[in-house]
């Protein structure tokens, strides 16, 4: 049985800069041009200052953070993941701005030693030509 392709993100006006940078393996967060606060994902208004014209810019961040939680996925509801089971999802608080949380796969495998606060850094999985999605790997404590 050939495994299906993993689903791809479809960029829109707000998300296109994020996916363009991700394709180059650069993690960006959306910075509000009015108040400078980072957010993810971007929204039509800024959550921090309420600006209805936030003119978000895709600000590169170094992608370091700590694990707040994790789960081991043993049954997939998506195409393209069957061969990857079991896999770990991590809930990551980014060092750049701790109230920003990202969820992605931990690429170290299901037996990686994890605890609350484990340091991680962003990694990218290439899914198709010009399409990469963020994931994480365990990092040395800084």
């Amino acid at each position: 049985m050939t495994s299906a392709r993993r689903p791809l993100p479809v960029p829109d006006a707000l998300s296109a800069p994020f996916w363009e940078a991700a394709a180059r393996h650069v993690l960006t967060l959306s910075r509000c041009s009015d108040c400078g606060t980072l957010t993810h994902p971007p929204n039509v208004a800024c959550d921090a200052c309420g600006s209805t014209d936030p003119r978000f810019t895709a600000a590169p961040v170094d992608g370091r953070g700590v694990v707040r939680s994790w789960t081991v996925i043993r049954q997939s509801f998506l195409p393209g993941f069957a061969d990857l089971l079991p896999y770990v999802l991590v809930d990551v608080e980014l060092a750049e701005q701790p109230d920003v949380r990202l969820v992605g796969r931990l690429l170290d495998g299901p037996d990686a030693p994890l605890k609350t606060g484990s340091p991680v850094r962003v990694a990218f999985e290439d899914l198709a030509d010009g399409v990469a999605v963020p994931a994480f790997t365990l990092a040395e404590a800084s």
Partner: protein
Amino acid sequence: MSARFRARDRVAIVGYAQSPVVRHADRSLGALTLDTARAAVADAGLTPDQIDGFVTGTLLPTAGEHAVVDGVSVVSADWLAARLNPHPRYAAGFSGLGQIPGLMAMAVNAVASGAAEHVLVHRALHNPAGSYHGTSAGEFRGGLQWTAPQGFFGPLAMMGLTYNEYVQRYGASREALAEVVVEARKNGARLPWSHWSGRPLSAEQYLAEPMLADPIGRLDCDIPVDGAAAFVLTTAERARDLPHRPVHVSGYASGAPPRRRLPAHWPLDDIMAAGATTADRLWAAAGMGLDEIDLVQVYDGFSPLVFLWLEALGRCPVGEGHHYVRDGRIDSDRPGADPVLLSGGSLGNGRMHGVPQLLECYLQVSGRAGARQRSGIATALSCHSSPHLGGALVYSAEPGTSPVHESRV
């Protein structure tokens, strides 16, 4: 200080019906719901032409790609009204999470304002053929573009992350969740309408189940079902002339808009922060606190939500829900215990989305619980969904005083 909730105990539940809860009904959800609604109207001592308001919530809680078809996979207020009383004064649907507190709030407000005199509320749940949450989608737009391509998808992963955060922080054991699931299934096994009727579960069976999204296993999730329930609401004054002892709605509260997150991302601190305000608003609306409530029925669509609701309501300190349920302290058969899953919940009925909790409160306060009837239940509280996105209701056997007269005092 905010103003008094003027509808407090002014609107009453006066009748109900509950369909059999089955994996796949042998008839359409619309037919099942229509029969259930007719039974509820008759139970209230009314006729369909007297039902001038219809309220529901139609969420089909699947992450999969099932078509939403009115009368087949959902049943809207309009669909039901067209077949019971095609000229209602009010028909509306609640569109958020926490459908039971949300739709009950709309129904109470409709009666209290005079928008309708007799409101039928219903909730119809469908289990579509095929995988409930599975999808073959090759691309994702909108919010899910940020999660699904990365492998974060569906409510199991959601609850796995939330509950592991709880386990890591507070040291909750699998045995604590076993107490929850076994208690729900024990109570559900006693209900003639339940999918799990006659089928209790042992802790050993629970603990033998494999994980699906650690630390969440299959039996921590309610099972998808076909089922419908309906309730009739009217004014406290009108309720006095109807056959059953009325159960008044003292107050309702839904979660505050919580912090915006990725889809299906429920960080524990978000749940508890917004949950605290949900509880505060509930006590303010109901005009009573937890110590004045005789029966609390918590929501358990995922078993860990029992801990989170116990903590959000203040039944125990934050982080101690997993201790609270141990050693038979929620055992409905133990005198003096706190039977928070007396309804069987979702784990003991099937995925009826907050209906069992509402139904048990109604039956116990109205004295209609039959062999399960407990003495001295004059007030009750039911929860639905999570403390941050769902909500809760408080009920009372006693009618409220007239707000018109009160304002003149």
